[in-house]
């Protein structure tokens, strides 16, 4: 097994440095799918989350609870739900979206939205209430207050988006169920690694794994940098 591994690592470097087209395709697809899902999730989730963070209302605690539950929603179950919805014999079958990247984006979107909402809400809530009052007492309208508090907590908010992206790009269960792991079309890092390992093609699997690790490393480095940098 050890020399198989070694053989795999060597093959991996060759694939990476000769810019093997399949690896590039997989890389681009993975980033496009997860990036799109995170982008859309942020578009919807950031304003919503920060608005929720601003206001006090009845049942906020219950809502927070619900949000936290959804943040930890098992991705593969989400995949199953989306699959059942998008299958031809399902309610949204007419759209013909199964086994497309759109389906994958949808699945990852629903997994990312709670994360973005939850973290931006928490970010706004963690701002010093004295600051919030100061801004209010200067006579700000609600949207002006919202903007200032968002600026104040922008590091935490960005961190939340990065976490959402990290989750999306590392996810394997949902995308394989709704995407079908089709070569050149719906194959991502994670699903390709599953396939290659299953086929015993450790070289390709390791190559993909290495690139994925590098990406997550860069993500986490940025995250840590953001969270510890002094204002």
């Amino acid at each position, binding site marked *: 097994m050890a020399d198989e591994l070694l053989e795999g690592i060597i093959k991996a470097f060759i694939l990476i440095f000769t810019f093997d087209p399949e690896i590039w395709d997989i890389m681009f697809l993975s980033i496009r799918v997860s990036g799109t899902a995170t982008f859309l999730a942020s578009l919807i989730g950031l304003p919503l989350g920060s608005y929720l963070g601003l206001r006090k209302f009845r049942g906020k605690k219950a809502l927070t609870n619900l949000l936290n539950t959804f943040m930890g929603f098992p991705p593969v179950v989400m995949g199953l739900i989306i699959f059942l919805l998008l299958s031809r014999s399902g309610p949204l079958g007419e759209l013909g979206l199964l086994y497309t990247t759109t389906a994958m984006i949808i699945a990852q979107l629903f997994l990312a939205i709670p994360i973005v909402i939850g973290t931006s809400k928490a970010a706004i809530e963690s701002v*010093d209430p*004295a*600051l919030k*009052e*100061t*801004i*209010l*007492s*200067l*006579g*700000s*309208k*609600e949207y*002006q207050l919202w903007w*200032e508090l968002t*600026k*104040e907590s922008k590091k935490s908010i960005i961190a939340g988006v990065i976490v959402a992206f990290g989750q999306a790009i590392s996810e394997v269960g949902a995308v394989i169920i709704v995407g079908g792991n089709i070569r050149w079309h719906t194959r991502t890092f994670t699903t390709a690694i599953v396939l290659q390992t299953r086929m015993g093609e450790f070289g390709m699997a390791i190559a993909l794994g290495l690139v994925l690790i590098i990406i997550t490393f860069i993500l986490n480095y940025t995250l840590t940098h953001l969270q510890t940098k002094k*204002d």
Partner: protein
Amino acid sequence: MSLIEIQNVSKTFVRSNELENTVLDEVSFSVKKGECFAIIGPNGSGKTTLLRILGLLERPSKGNILYKERNITNLSKKEIVAYRQKFSFVRQKPVVLNASVANNIAYGLKIREMEKSQIISKVKEIIELVGLKNKANTNARSLSGGEMQRVVIAMNFILSPEIYLLDEISANLDPKNVVLLENFITKIKQDKTKTIIISTHNPLEAIKFADRIGVLNEGKLIQIDTPEKIFTYPKDEFTAQFVGYENIFNGFAKFDQKTGLNHVKVDDLIVYTSDQKEGHVKVCIRPESIVIAKNAPDNTSFCNSFKGKIENIRDLGNICHIFIKTKDKKFLSSITKESSINLNLKPESEVYFNFKATDVKCL
């Protein structure tokens, strides 16, 4: 017509597990335009809450707030914004935006959508006034406490509010910055259209600036009066002690026809007072009123003359606090250092201490 008035305002905070905390209890007062009103009281008396309610940052549990005789207690969010723009609230601990000093000061004007060039000229003007010109582009959060408080003041002053609400703003500052702030308040006062409401736990600060003072203790407004009245006719023991009556004793007062004064029996001492209350009273004497002499006084300008032993001397720079003990009572006298030296006062010295009947207050 009063500018701002609060009627029977109470505030109760409900914590979890049904613990209630009544911070304000039926507080009422009104402030006229151009007036400087001070709220004094110890920490925890509810001063900050009261000011916050005035600044529309907190809603009272009971009672009303009136602005120019219009009830503004329960306004919608939109309406509150309009009123908040008339008030200016400066807190004890300065809080600034994460931006340069100039941007902080400009913020209030920016959100009022003032014209760009106007904003720039106003900011330049104000920054000069608070003495932060050379720090205009530094991040406001990197400044010292005193400088930050100046930024906050500039941020508020630039908006020309009708009412200034200043919540213990000198509490956390070093003396130099306190002086700067006091100059600032003086400046505001020069404009007769500006109303100021300050809260402080330092009674002397209140005396300095206020036209009227309200004494707040444990959520209740005990007394509202001009500074002189508060200090000469404190309504109760708490107020008395708070404003500086250190010598307070229980006694029984009765009119003495021979002297034309009341005399109060305080255990084994008899104290003469011009105060006309009778019965069980509390006798209050200011430390400043007590004069110390080495020998018994000859003339009778001091009705009250007692002998005692010096227990302790506290040197406070220009003045000295002298603690004198009689058989079972302790008196505090406040005299100049020079006097103390001239009298050659030392602990265990035997002295006479005297005070006038008019300096004895009975509650």
